[in-house]
Structures are given as C-alpha cells and as structure tokens.
C-alpha cells in the first residue's frame, strides 16, 4: 500500500494544539490523530476535508500521496 505523507503534526504544532485538542476539534480520538500523524492511518475523505477546513488550507497542501514525487507546484 502506498504511504501518504502529511503535515498535520507541523500544522498542529504551529497552533500549539495537543493531539487530544486537535482530535476534539475534528471529532475523532487522540489515537486517531496520532495514527494519521505517524502515517499509520490514512483518513477518510470526509475527515480529510474536515482537517482542510479546520486549517483553512487545500487538502493537497496538507496531504501528499507522492504521486508526482511530492511536487505539486
């Protein structure tokens, strides 16, 4: 299975949120946030959209499937 990389940990740290706090804002558990950050779990499309809306960024600026070698520019 292809690994999906993401910037969730960085974005969370920029806002000084804990994993539990981000989880509560997204209506998921702290474990789910941790699993997404560490690449053990790829979020569903609805959750990816919730994350994008929360950080006010396009999904592809948060998640990178490395389909184009990680270059989306």
């Amino acid at each position, binding site marked *: 299975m292809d690994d999906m990389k993401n910037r969730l940990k960085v974005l969370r740290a920029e806002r000084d949120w804990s994993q*539990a*706090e981000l*989880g*509560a*804002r997204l*209506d*998921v*558990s*702290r*474990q*789910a946030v941790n*699993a997404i950050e560490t690449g*053990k*779990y790829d*979020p*569903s499309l609805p*959750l990816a959209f919730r994350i994008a809306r929360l950080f006010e960024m396009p999904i592809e600026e948060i998640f990178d499937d490395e389909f184009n070698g990680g270059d989306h520019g």
Partner: protein
Amino acid sequence: MTSSTEAIMAETDWQARARQRKRRVNLVVGTLFCIGLLSGFLVGFFEDEKADLLSANSIPPWLAVASAILFVVATTIGSWKLMQVSDELERTIHVKTTVVAGNVMLIGYPTWFILWKGGIVPEPDALWLFLAGFAASAIAYAWYKLR
C-alpha cells in the same frame, strides 16, 4: 470577555467534548459488560450443580432461549451503537479484526475438516473454532492498536 477567559473556555470546551466522546464509548461497553455479567450470573444460578461447562441440558429451556435472544439483541444493538460512538480509526480497526476472525474460522474449519477426513486429527469442534476466531480477533485488535 478577555482573551485569556476565552482561551480557558475554549480549552474547557474541547476537553469536555473529548470526555463526552470517551463517556459515550464507556457507556456502550459498560452496558454490554453488565448484560454479559447478568446473563452469566443467571446461567450459573440456574445451572445443574452436577453439570460441567460443556454439559447439554444443564439449564432450563426458558433460560437458554432468553439468554440466546439477549445475546443476539445485545451484540447486534451494541455493535451498532459502538460503531456510532467510535471514530473512524476505531471503526476501521473493528472491521479489520472482524475480517481476521472470520478468515481464521472460514479457513480453519475446511483445513481441520480435510485433516479429519484423512484421519489425522479429531472431528472439528465448534467451540475450538470459535475460541480460535475470538483469539485471532483479540490479537489483531491489540496489534492494530499498539503497532
């Protein structure tokens, strides 16, 4: 309202939501546990004292029917409620562990059956197959949660 007060309120809000999420899950799991405990207590109370665990006809038929109905209803509604209160990671893990348990039983029985046909092993036993599926489910759950 000062910004620090707002920050404290916001923090309380997300912490309350996290607690509420945990409470919902604990309520469903706790209810299922209590139903299982009650069912086990009733079976133990009415069971023939001379009978061992695997003896047939050791509890009254009404209790057997009531326990079977209670088990089916509780696990069906309980699983449905648990899926509602769990987040998507937990739901995914539940689905994966169910698939693992199902595969252990679906592959285990024919394998055991063909070995039995060859006279190598005793006849397939439903209880052992169930226990194998249950153990596989528990191991898979632990692996997906702790990896």
